[in-house]
């Protein structure tokens, strides 16, 4: 059989593939200009401090860190987020600290107020301090996904395992979701 008589030869295939690739690339370029970048964030109003943020994130340590809204904090000596319930003394002794990795730091301000800050390099996002602060304090400590650490997975492993569906994708322009004094907590 003469090769010129073949219906669809190799050259035709390569031409078709090039056209398809060019068309697809044009479509992607057009789409990219319009789509808003979405990021994963935790809604503090829905978080139940289950601890899965620390164990479920695909990176280790987790991209979830504790953040502190100092405008809500009471700067308490007996801090429910810093001290173990069984603490023998209200001081910085390791045996009294609630945080399993000593990521929460306590500093004397003036009688009887203390300032609490989070060392993000140590924090693993376990929410133990968040739970203590929510139960005994004002709830100024809460968890949030750090965008500089988060890989922004298409399907977030934490979102999939969160029992309260607190991990949601929001437009980048709405991040970060941090608690503030007097602001409504739930984001519907």
């Amino acid at each position: 059989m003469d090769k010129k008589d073949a219906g669809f030869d190799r050259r035709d295939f390569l031409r078709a593939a090039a056209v398809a690739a060019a068309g697809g690339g044009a479509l992607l370029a057009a789409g990219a200009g319009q789509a808003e970048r979405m990021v994963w964030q935790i809604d503090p109003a829905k978080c139940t401090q289950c601890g899965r943020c620390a164990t479920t994130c695909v990176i280790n340590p987790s991209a979830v860190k504790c953040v502190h809204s100092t405008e809500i904090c009471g700067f308490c000596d007996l801090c429910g987020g810093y001290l173990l319930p069984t603490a023998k003394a209200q001081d910085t002794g390791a045996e009294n600290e609630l945080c399993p990795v000593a990521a929460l730091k306590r500093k004397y301000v003036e009688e009887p107020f203390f300032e609490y800050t989070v060392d993000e390099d140590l924090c693993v996002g376990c929410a133990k301090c968040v739970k203590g602060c929510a139960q005994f304090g004002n709830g100024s400590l809460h968890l949030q996904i750090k965008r500089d650490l988060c890989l922004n997975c298409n399907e977030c492993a934490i979102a999939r395992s969160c029992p309260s569906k607190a991990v949601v994708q929001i437009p980048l322009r709405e991040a970060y979701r941090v608690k503030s004094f007097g602001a409504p907590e739930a984001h519907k």
Partner: protein
Amino acid sequence: MDQKPLIPRWAWTVLSAAVLAAVVALFLTGKPKEPGPSFRHDTSNFEKAGAAQKRFRETARFALDLANPTGIAATADGGLLVCGENTLLVLDAAGKETARHAVAGTPECVAQGPDGRIYLGMRRRVVVLDAAGAAAAEWPELDERAYLTSIAADTDCVYAADAGNRVVLRYGFDGALLGEIGRRDAAREIPGFVVPSPHLEVAMDPMTGLWANNPGRHGLEQYRPDGSLASSWYRAGMTIEGFCGCCNPMAIAFRADGSVVTAEKGLVRMKVLAPDLSLAGVVALPEDLGAASGEAAAAEDNAPVRDLAVDAQGRILALHGPWKAVLVYEEEQHAAG
């Protein structure tokens, strides 16, 4: 001639079955990793502490047709006043609603004066109603930091607890501001109120002494009308004898024998302290108030008991916000009789 297939049919069957089994197994066993004990915050043991010292029993529960109940007070005739969203309710001793008054705004606290007038602590001002519930006066508005959370009256004046400015205001019955009580003053050895959350309370004891809680210091303070500190008592701790968390006790009320009823948030419980402030008995524990850990309500609201009062019959009245009800407690021997 037919060629032999590269992979025989039986091998395809086995391969497909293996892939299917793997997919099913992964789907069924793909549970999220649960955090270990070092990541868990568990206070359930503390919730049971004090069960052996329970001396009171819930004998009645008055359901309220009221959105967002905030304050309760006992009246001289044995009834109750309950305030909430845009409303003041008047109840009789059996909890039956006898009157309902509309209020512009949500009062945070309520008290009855010696002449029967009703004092409502709105966030930044005091509103006065006459004994029939009609508007009588509105006292001057306070600054934007003010947050009135409790109000009490004796025969001479009205005391309003301002949690925002961390001070107790002393008013005359005409609304004139006579003075402030409790502001930090090293010269007079007044430590100052520590109020991390809006739970500053005032109450009159049977001898008409003025008491206030100091929630951040975990105790009670008694003041004279001139603002000098008469006595103070603090006890921080998770045990039943002490007060835990950032701000407890968050509500107080006195009984006729001089003992004081306290309500706490966080580790939600109510107890009675004797006149020497030792533990006299437990009224209710977290499980009695729907606040045991693990209960969804506990996570939503860590201060379900909004206010306390003691009525003319000596019954302890706890205003439960989420349940929209007044819980009535009586001492065990009285309840049994």
